[in-house]
């Protein structure tokens, strides 16, 4: 079971890969630990990383039925398992380092990718894995900067929650005045199909630190409304 530290009430504080604290107060518990997407930008372009609770990549691949297709390789690196999940059909390879609490994964084009390529990338970061989260700060001299953090979690059967730093979302903020809710200013976004029925309902809310998108599992679910009115997400 992924670790989800719960303080009093339903407030939880976790550590994002860039070292920021993510504080979330929610009326209903999340299904599991947080998953993060983060990019490391350098002189030769960007590398995307996924940081998730340990074992997620293997579990998800098995659930989706992708696992038998993969050529699986495994080794030991820095006190954790290192997996290479090679997909011959799509000509790509997912490399995962599984730490004691969380794991970090990235994608390589092509097959037959040596573990050394992944180790060379990981060695550019100071990786610390704790129950509160995995941080991967670029080492001095690596010429890398972290950006485009996205934290994702799910409240089972109700909604999906996506949090990003406010600085990355400034263009997405509507000019109209949002509704005041506990988590900041909120706008409702309905995507309708051709017949005019609501296909996807979501809420976008911002405060001084974070921009949060809450996507409803079912558009007319009252529990979704109550989550939107009471959830609060902050990055610091």
């Amino acid at each position, binding site marked *: 079971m992924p670790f989800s530290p719960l303080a009093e009430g339903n407030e939880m504080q976790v550590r994002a890969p860039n070292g920021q604290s993510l504080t979330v107060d929610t009326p209903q518990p999340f299904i599991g630990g947080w998953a993060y997407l983060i990019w490391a930008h350098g002189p030769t372009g960007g590398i995307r990383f996924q940081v998730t609770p340990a074992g997620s990549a293997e579990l998800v691949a098995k659930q989706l039925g992708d696992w038998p297709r993969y050529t*699986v*390789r495994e*080794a030991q690196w820095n006190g954790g398992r290192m997996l290479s999940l090679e997909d011959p059909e799509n000509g790509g390879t997912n490399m995962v380092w599984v730490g004691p609490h969380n794991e970090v994964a990235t994608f390589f084009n092509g097959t037959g990718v040596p573990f050394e390529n992944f180790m060379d990338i990981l060695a550019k970061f100071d990786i610390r894995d704790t129950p509160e989260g995995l941080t991967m700060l670029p080492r001095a001299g690596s010429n890398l900067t972290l950006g485009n953090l996205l934290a994702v979690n799910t409240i089972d059967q109700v909604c999906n929650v996506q949090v990003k730093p406010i600085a990355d979302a400034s263009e997405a903020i509507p000019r109209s005045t949002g509704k005041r809710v506990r988590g900041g200013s909120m706008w409702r976004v309905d995507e309708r199909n051709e017949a005019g029925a609501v296909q996807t309902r979501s809420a976008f809310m911002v405060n001084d630190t974070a921009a949060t998108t809450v996507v409803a599992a079912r558009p007319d679910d009252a529990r979704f409304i109550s989550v939107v009115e009471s959830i609060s997400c902050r990055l610091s």
Partner: protein
Amino acid sequence: MRAFLDSLAVLSFLGTVLLLFAFASLLNMVRELQGKLLTAQAAAPAAPAVRTVARFGSDDGLPTFVLVVSEHCPNCRERAQHLSAVAEAGLPWHAVLLASADRCAEWAADSHVLPVIDAALVGTLAVGATPSLIRYSADGTEEWRRVVGSDDDLDAYLAVSPSERSNA
């Protein structure tokens, strides 16, 4: 009684503050050490991995494959057992299992793989990940090293010639 409790409260508060000071000075010490370590690292880069090991040379002109394994690593054990299974007498190479823990020698028991338990040597070779396969020429010079992620990879690496797979 009230005064007594008050003084107790003040004392415990002072105690906390003192603890905080102690903690802060400890933090400072750690930061200083970290700073010194950083400057030390910048001044002297890490010693390069040893690339020549005389004991992995051979008298018969044949190369030697060294599988470097660690103790708490299930796939190291699987690779070691696979190496033991494929290493037969008369093959054009020698095979060595290198580890720092005695227990690992059992993984190559009753085979043509020579177990070498030498923690200091493992340290100087400085392989990044385990299991890693290193190929040495007859004079004990390292030709290449690779992380071995599966038995198939191990078979492939054992079959290749150094010219086909040059690696830093």
